[in-house]
C-alpha cells in the first residue's frame, strides 16, 4: 500500500471513523460521502462518526494458510463483525485461540499493527478485535466432537 494512501485513511483505521447518514439514520464504515439508499439527497448529509468499537461476531473462519505478513500468527481467526451501530466489517480477532471464536460472541476493538511495507518501509497500524465478556469454555463445549452428528 502506498504511503499517501495509508496516510489518507489514518483516522478510519486508527479510530474507526465512518459516516452517519442523517437522511436514513444509518451508519456506514468506512467513511463515505454518499449513501446509495438515500440517493443524491444524501450528498452533504453524511457526517463523520466514530464507532464505539464494540460488536458481535457474525461468522468466523480460521486461516491456516497465512497471507503474506501474517505468517507469525498462523493459524489465525478472521471474522465478519457486526458493529453495534450496524455496519459489518472484516477483521482479525486476536489474543485467543482461533477456534475459540464463535458466531454471536461479543468483541471490542484494539489498536494493533496491521503490517509493514518491508523491513525498512512504513508500519501500518489500525484496528483489530478481541473477545470480551464471553464465557469461552461454554461456547467451546458446543463444538465438542461428541456433539457433532456424522
Amino acid at each position, binding site marked *: 500500500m502506498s504511503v499517501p494512501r495509508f496516510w489518507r485513511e*489514518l*483516522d478510519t483505521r*486508527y*479510530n474507526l471513523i465512518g459516516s452517519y447518514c442523517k437522511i436514513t439514520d444509518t451508519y456506514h464504515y468506512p467513511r463515505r460521502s454518499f449513501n446509495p439508499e438515500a440517493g443524491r439527497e444524501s450528498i452533504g448529509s453524511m457526517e463523520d462518526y466514530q464507532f464505539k468499537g464494540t460488536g458481535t461476531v457474525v461468522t468466523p473462519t480460521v486461516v491456516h494458510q497465512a497471507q503474506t505478513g501474517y*505468517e*507469525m*500468527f498462523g493459524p489465525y481467526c478472521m471474522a465478519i463483525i457486526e458493529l453495534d451501530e450496524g455496519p459489518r466489517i472484516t477483521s482479525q480477532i*486476536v*489474543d485467543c485461540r482461533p477456534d475459540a471464536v464463535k458466531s454471536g460472541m461479543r468483541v471490542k476493538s*484494539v*489498536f*494493533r*499493527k*496491521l503490517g509493514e511495507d518491508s523491513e525498512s518501509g512504513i*508500519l501500518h*497500524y489500525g484496528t*483489530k478485535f478481541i473477545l470480551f465478556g464471553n464465557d469461552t469454555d461454554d461456547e467451546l463445549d458446543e463444538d465438542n466432537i461428541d456433539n457433532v452428528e456424522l
Partner: protein
Amino acid sequence: MSGIVSYGAYIPSHKIETGEIASVWGADGSAWAKNLNVYSKSVPGPDEDVITIAVEATRLAMKRAKLGGINIGAIYTGSESHPYAVKPTSTIVAEAIGATPNLTAADFEFACKAGTAAIQTCLGIVGNNQVENGIAIGVDTSQGAPGDALEYSASAGGGTVIIGNKNVIATINHTTSYTTDTPDFWRREGQKYPRHGGRFTGKPAFFKHVMMCGKMIMDMAGSKPEDYDYVVTHQPNGKFPIRAAKSLGFTEEQYKTGLLTPRIGNTYSGAVFLGLAAILDIAKPGDRILAVAYGSGAGSDGFDLTVTDEIAKMDRSETVEDMISRMEIINYATYAKYRGKLNMGDSK
C-alpha cells in the same frame, strides 16, 4: 498543585515461564527463577509493539479522566524500543487519541527512565500553564539475546500518566533526579540486542542511583519511609527493588503492591509506570507514594506523591491485576515466533 490527572496501563496477554526459557538452554529454571525472583514474563504478540501498547494505555487513561484529545497539549513517549529510529511514536499516539494537530510531541530515550523524564517535562510545561494537560508514557518491548541472562526478564508493557492542574488524583509534591555517566547497559545504533556490564549493573549503577535519589527526594520532602503507604522503584528483576526498598527503610507492606517483575518480568521504561498504576488501582485518598525510576547510562528520577479525594470519583476498572490474571502461558517455540527469533530465510 500539578499532579496526575489520570493513568492507564497495558500488559500483553501472553507470558512465558522462566523454567520454559531455561529448559531450552539446559539451565536450571528453578534456580534462575529464584535468583532473579522472576517466575514469568510478558510477551507481546506479533502485532504488538511500543506504539500499540502506548496507544492502549493512553486510551485507558483518557477514558478514566473523561478527557478528549482537545484537552491534550503535549505527548512525550519514553522508550528504548521505539519501532522507528526516525519517526515519533508520540505522533501516532496523538493521532490515535484524536489530539492532533494542536499539541507538541516528542520521543524520549534514557534507557528505563525515559518515561519518568517525560513526567518531569510535563510537570514543567503544565506548571507554567503552557498546556492544560500533558501526557507522559513509559513503554518498552525490549529483548534479551537468546541465552543471555536478560532473556529471562526482558518483557513488554507500559503505562501512561496524564499530568495537569485540574481534577488531580495524585499531587506530585516533589521531584528530583540523580544523574551520572555510568556505562552499565547500552545498545549501539543498529544493534538488535543490548549489552550489559554483568555485576556492574548492580552496586555502582542501580543501587547507587536509586538509593541516592530516594534519599534526596525524602530530604526534599522532609519525610521518612514510615510516612509513605507505598513505594515503587525500577525493577530490572525481582530482587534489586526489594533490596533497594529495604535499604532505604521500607517494609514489604509498602513495596509489594508495586512490585510486578516477579510475575510480568522487566518492562523497562514501563516498570515504574505499571507499578504506580497497580498502586493507584487500589490507593485511597490521603495515601502517600514514593516512586524512584532508574535508567542505565545512568540516572534516577524520584517523585513524592499524595493521593487526593478525586481518585474516589474515578472508574478504576481494568486494573493491572485484571491484565495479569488474563495472561496465558505460551511455550518457547511460540515465544520465538512472536519475538522474531526465527530465521525465515527467503520465505518471508
